[in-house]
């Protein structure tokens, strides 16, 4: 239905990682496995939802000059809450892997960006929808990268070994692998986007020039137009 389509549009067409290129730091750092990716996505989405709600409710009271500082304070409050919850509720291994990137959600450009671009200008329900859509998109992107890196780099999926004989390419879980995997994924999405664009409407046409070559030949004009064949370079 209409709502689902709007959410999907937010998640896919304006995907925060692959479309808007925001929030790249945690994307690369936490996607060493699908589990970490999902916990991070949950944490970030929770902060996004709460901050969108609060900022949308307060949007008429926040003065324009100090709005960024206000958003940051609001987001920091929610990040602290999420941090404490994660310390208590998430497995110790996940907390260790995620490390400083949970408090770094406060400087995640996605959350600040949506607060600035959407929550500060739209009503409560629209902001909630926006948070859900963008959160889903972020989760999808993180999971995709986490999936690729975990399967290639550890041969496991959620901790369960997939193929016993597979010697994993440990580079994929390390820093260089992260960059290369995301570079290739960006390239893949670019290629899909290009193909979709090529099938769509044609771009503006370049100017056309008419010369004597385009005009019907007059009698007696026997000069050859092309040079005789020469051995090519």
């Amino acid at each position: 239905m209409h709502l689902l389509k709007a959410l999907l549009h937010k998640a896919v067409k304006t995907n925060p990682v692959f479309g808007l290129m925001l929030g790249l730091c945690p994307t690369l750092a936490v996607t060493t496995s699908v589990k970490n990716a999902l916990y991070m996505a949950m944490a970030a989405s929770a902060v996004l939802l709460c901050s969108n709600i609060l900022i949308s409710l307060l949007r008429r009271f926040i003065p324009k000059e100090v709005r960024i500082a206000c958003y940051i304070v609001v987001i920091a409050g929610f990040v602290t809450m999420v941090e404490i919850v994660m310390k208590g509720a998430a497995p110790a291994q996940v907390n260790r892997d995620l490390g400083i990137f949970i408090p770094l959600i406060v400087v995640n450009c996605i959350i600040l960006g949506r607060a600035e671009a959407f929550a500060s200008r739209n009503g409560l329900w629209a902001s909630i929808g926006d948070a859900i859509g963008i959160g889903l998109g972020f989760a999808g992107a993180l999971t995709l990268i986490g999936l690729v890196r975990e399967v290639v780099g550890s041969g496991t999926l959620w901790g369960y070994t997939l193929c016993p004989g597979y010697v994993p390419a440990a580079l994929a879980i390390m820093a260089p692998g992260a960059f290369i995997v995301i570079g290739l994924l960006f390239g893949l999405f670019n290629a899909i986007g290009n193909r979709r664009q090529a099938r769509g409407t044609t771009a503006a046409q370049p100017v056309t020039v008419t010369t004597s070559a385009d005009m019907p030949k007059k009698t007696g004009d026997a000069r050859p137009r092309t040079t005789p064949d020469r051995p090519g370079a």
Partner: protein
Amino acid sequence: MAFPLTALGFAWTYVIAAGVVLGALAALFGVGLAVASRVFRVHADPRIEQIEDALPNVNCGACGYGGCSAYAAAVVAGEIGPSECVPGGMDVARQVAAVMGLEAEEKEKQVAVVFCQGGNRAENRCRYEGITDCRAAVLTQDADKGCRWGCVGLGTCAQACPFGAIVMGDDGLPHVIEDKCTGCGTCAEVCPKGIISILPAANMVHVLCRSRDAGGQVRKVCPVGCIGCKQCEKACPVEGGAIHVTDFLARVDLSACISCGKCVQVCPTGAIGNFRLSRRAKRGKVKGQEAA
């Protein structure tokens, strides 16, 4: 699971501490920033920012200044008129003039014209393997084309255009998308051969060649180059001639040319181009080929 708020008694100190620390930080920073904004005050005419907002912010330099901010500052300082932004066109000129309380003057539309039709049809005298940039190729033994006046074809102009208005075609030549072209002149500046010129759109006939080699030499390397045969000079109906051949190259006198297209028909190599079909078509008056 180890939540820090284990006993209710402890909870209050967190609230107090948080309040005091953040309140103190906020007060300290608030005062500090207020003082700093006084000390580091920059006196700027607010009109500069208003004009900057109206400008397209492409920093192409067509106005003659280093960037849009420099142009805005110059307009406010009274050094230059409000209609000099070429990519912005009349819309931007009117906005800038409104900020300054002046009148915007009409500027005729200018477009880039590529003065070469050789491309892949022209012969190469060697093979160039290197950085795919025309300037780099020219620095290396004057590029690989047989005609040293013609287009190198590596696409530096297409890359430089801030509006995406010039694209490299399969024929090895750049093609101008005149709907997008704003006449900013970036492509003309970067072309190492200098074969792109920014000319008024009202002039529709141009000799699309810059080769000053003798006719025989031109024939050897390019099938569509100007050989300096002077047929166009003879065919021109304008009093005093609007097209003249000097140095084996025909050149159109833009002030005299009436864009009738007679020279286009008689050129034996097809070096002269008529842009009339493409430009007039936009206004719905498609006249087809110009009759003799």
